[in-house]
């Protein structure tokens, strides 16, 4: 890849960061929480995107960013109030800016009508804000400059090309030039100007030292000299002006063509007829050694060639250096630079993660061999292996942390979804986000984007009522969608909640009956009805709206979440709103599991799901409706599920006595008792996906390789429960779904 292509790639990466920050800051402003620095940060983000885009000649992007930036500048200057309406425009501009960046990156097109529409809106805002301000010219580059400012400073384009003004023949110019103190203070150097003039021709330079005071009165940083220069050049006056471009405003400059008497200068000559002061012209080539000048040069010991110029020269730094350094050091502490980061190819991280996975398996195998070979429990080998195990775990956690990313960018993308959904449905919606700093595996975040988008759209489209209905219900016009993330017991829990009308259970049930998803006479609990939303083919939208009705139902959402080893549940309260809760593993690579035996099969149950393990006594065991066994535990009746039977390894057990019960808690708090033969071990297992290599198996989340090299299935308790209770009589289903309420 050549250097520019690489920089281009960097640019788009940087754009992603900038767009993310932009979105966050715009939202802060929209919430009315921003300060001046927020506005500045927004401005900077757009500005940086424009700057980079200009470098790669991405004209559409530059054009839009420029207008956006100009309008933001109105806000920055206090001429435009960031009202909710204005912020609405800005937020949409942020969206379009993102689209334009991605279009430029992928070389695709964007809807020009939308862009032009927004540009027009921005124009309107600009005009409304700075009513008196002249229309901003389109940026084209260096040559496109605004009119002169009030200091009479006319920017001149830098043209270092060889083609001149094509003046016929040489012209002699007379340049009168007097430096101001600021010229030197700003790091300019008269000698360099003369050197540049030397490139145009052979200047005759005479220096007027009349204003030079006596040595003891000289301010070493003062400016006392002026020059008259005769220059014969075949390049035009423009070329001379260019030489003085940087110092204009810090000097008095008059340029006149000798052949004509008229002055074409824009700065009035200062000091009148310099000629008559009797300067002695000296050639620049002869170095500037003004013999009659006092010995400022020696006193100053300036490294610059113009030692005669009282330029501000660096003070000998030896004695002053130390305090300066100390002062700076303090400053450094006060504002430490941003954290150092390294960008690493994701493939490399994944390779590392795979290797760590192998390491975990290898460690397990080693432990098992050591045990089988009869190593004593506290022998050197066993102790060493124990340390090895700890180390493996630490390495694994550190590697996982590399892949972990905050959910913030994902959440930020959702604010756009909310905006679009709100405008499509004519609802007024506010998105509240919480716990954005929670970190989750990168892949989990990526694969969460689609389901979350769908859920957010659903919340706006189906969850929230229209403003009229809200008003009628005595609610605020503006609906709220709350998106939150939190770490809970080794998982990350993401909630999408709306303060809408809640699930219309009668309607949901009727639809399910109409679609023959459930029998017409089914008795369902509220929770069961709510869960009907996750059934394949269910859609409550009476008309397929542009938003949620994209052929994806909540069943697809549920499947995507399950594919990530996650679970989703729903809670709804009429009139108050609905909450969807997603619970996800922090990593997709390794989990802590309990190794169990069932019907001569070795299985793994995710440790996170397990509340308790127990040996049942006969007193605790009960039967409901003849063949639905339950166990009384934790002050409630909990349905018993024989894992061996549920997975088809054996017939239903007649008696669970002598078996081991594993109490599992679902995301919604439902308890279920799994019946297994015995518990073997508790260990970390490496997750090997089953779906990629085989296919989805109900009740099974994935597979793993055990220490003895054999494959064991990892159970998905939730899915196992629905499998186990799909066939049995409805009473058991309702019991399971009702969350183990008192029977």
């Amino acid at each position, binding site marked *: 890849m050549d250097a520019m292509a690489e920089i281009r790639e960097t640019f788009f990466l940087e754009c992603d960061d900038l767009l993310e920050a932009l979105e966050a800051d715009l939202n802060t402003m929209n919430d009315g929480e921003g300060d001046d620095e927020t506005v500045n940060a927004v401005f900077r983000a757009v500005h940086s995107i424009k700057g980079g885009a*200009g*470098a790669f000649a991405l004209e559409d992007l530059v054009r839009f960013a420029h207008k956006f930036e100009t309008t933001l500048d109105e806000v920055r200057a206090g001429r435009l109030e960031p009202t909710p309406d204005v912020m609405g425009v800005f937020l949409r501009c942020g969206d379009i800016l993102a689209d334009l960046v991605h279009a430029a990156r992928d070389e695709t097109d964007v809807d020009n009508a939308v862009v032009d529409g927004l540009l027009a809106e921005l124009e309107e805002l600009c005009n409304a804000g700075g009513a008196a301000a002249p229309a901003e010219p389109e940026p084209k*580059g260096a040559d496109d*400059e*605004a009119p002169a400012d009030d200091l009479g*400073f006319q920017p001149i384009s830098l043209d270092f090309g060889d083609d001149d003004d094509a003046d016929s023949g040489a012209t002699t110019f007379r340049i009168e030039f007097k430096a101001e103190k600021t010229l030197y203070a700003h*790091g300019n150097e008269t000698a360099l100007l003369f050197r540049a003039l030397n490139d145009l021709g052979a200047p005759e330079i005479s220096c007027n030292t009349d204003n030079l005071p006596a040595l003891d009165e000289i301010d070493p940083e003062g400016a006392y000299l002026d020059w008259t220069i005769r220059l014969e050049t075949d390049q035009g006056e423009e070329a001379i002006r260019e030489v003085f471009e940087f110092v204009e405003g810090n000097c008095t400059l008059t340029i006149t063509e000798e052949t004509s008497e008229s002055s074409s200068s824009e700065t009035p000559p200062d000091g009148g007829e310099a000629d008559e002061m009797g300067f002695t012209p000296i050639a620049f080539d002869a170095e500037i050694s003004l013999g009659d000048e006092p010995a400022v040069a020696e006193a100053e010991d300036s490294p610059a060639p113009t030692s005669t110029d009282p330029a501000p020269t660096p003070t000998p730094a030896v004695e002053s250096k130390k305090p300066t350094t100390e002062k*700076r050091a303090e400053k450094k502490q006060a504002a430490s630079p941003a954290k150092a980061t390294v960008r690493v190819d994701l493939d490399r991280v994944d390779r590392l993660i795979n290797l760590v996975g192998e390491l975990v398996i290898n460690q397990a195998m080693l432990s098992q061999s050591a045990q089988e070979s009869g190593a004593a429990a506290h022998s050197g080998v066993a102790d060493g292996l124990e340390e090895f195990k700890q180390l493996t775990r630490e390495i694994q956690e550190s590697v996982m942390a590399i892949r972990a990313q905050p959910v913030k960018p994902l959440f930020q993308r959702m604010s756009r979804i909310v905006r679009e959904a709100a405008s499509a449905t004519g609802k007024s919606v506010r998105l509240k986000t919480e716990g954005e700093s929670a970190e989750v595996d990168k892949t989990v975040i990526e694969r969460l984007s689609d389901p979350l988008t769908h859920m957010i759209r659903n919340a706006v489209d189906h969850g929230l009522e229209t403003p009229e209905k809200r008003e009628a219900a005595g609610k605020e016009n503006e609906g709220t969608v709350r998106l939150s993330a939190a770490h809970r017991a080794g998982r990350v829990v993401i909630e999408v909640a709306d303060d809408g009308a809640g699930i219309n259970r009668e309607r949901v049930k009727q639809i399910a009956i109409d679609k023959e998803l459930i029998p017409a006479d089914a008795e369902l609990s509220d929770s069961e009805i709510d869960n009907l939303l996750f059934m394949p083919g269910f859609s409550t939208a009476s008309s397929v709206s542009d938003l949620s009705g994209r052929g994806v139902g909540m069943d697809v959402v549920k499947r995507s979440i399950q594919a990530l080893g996650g679970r989703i549940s729903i809670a709804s309260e009429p009139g108050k709103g609905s909450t969807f809760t997603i619970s996800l593993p922090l990593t997709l690579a390794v989990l802590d599991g309990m190794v169990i035996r069932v019907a001569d099969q070795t299985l793994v149950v995710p440790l996170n799901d397990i509340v308790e393990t127990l040996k049942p006594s006969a007193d605790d065991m009960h039967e409901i409706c003849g063949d639905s066994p339950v166990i009384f535990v934790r002050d409630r009746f909990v349905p018993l599920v024989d894992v061996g039977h549920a997975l088809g390894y054996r017939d239903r057990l007649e008696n669970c006595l002598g078996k081991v019960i594993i109490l599992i808690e679902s995301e919604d708090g439902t308890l279920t008792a799994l019946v297994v033969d015995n518990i073997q071990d508790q260990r970390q297992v490496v997750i090997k996906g089953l779906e990629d290599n085989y296919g989805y198996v109900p009740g099974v989340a994935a597979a793993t390789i055990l220490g003895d090299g054999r494959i064991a299935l990892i159970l998905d308790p939730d899915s196992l429960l629905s499998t186990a209770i799909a066939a049995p009589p409805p009473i058991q289903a309702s019991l399971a779904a009702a969350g183990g309420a008192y029977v």
Partner: protein
Amino acid sequence: MALTVLAVDDSRTMRDMLRLALTNAGFDVHLAEDGVHGLEVLETLTPDVVITDINMPRMDGFGFIDGVRATDDHRAVPILVLTTESAAELKTRARNAGATGWIVKPFDEQKLVSAIRRVAA
């Protein structure tokens, strides 16, 4: 001897581009991410020319120029301001703040180098 140039810009893209252009021109290039960082770099570096962006977090270009001009070691170093603004106002402000000259972004490599050579003693 190669000219030493310190370029201060908060945009990674722009820093990369400056590094490329200036390295190609044979300069010894040093980079900083914003004004605060730039001043830190100047504690140990004595560049021949400094280039700085204006819009930067923590400390913008104006603040940076002020800071440089307030040092004992670098008060007279030529400072070129990078600007995409077409408004002359910004250049005036930059000059009033003590900038030596400016370079308009997007810059042409040749112009950039010429501008540096123009102000470098």
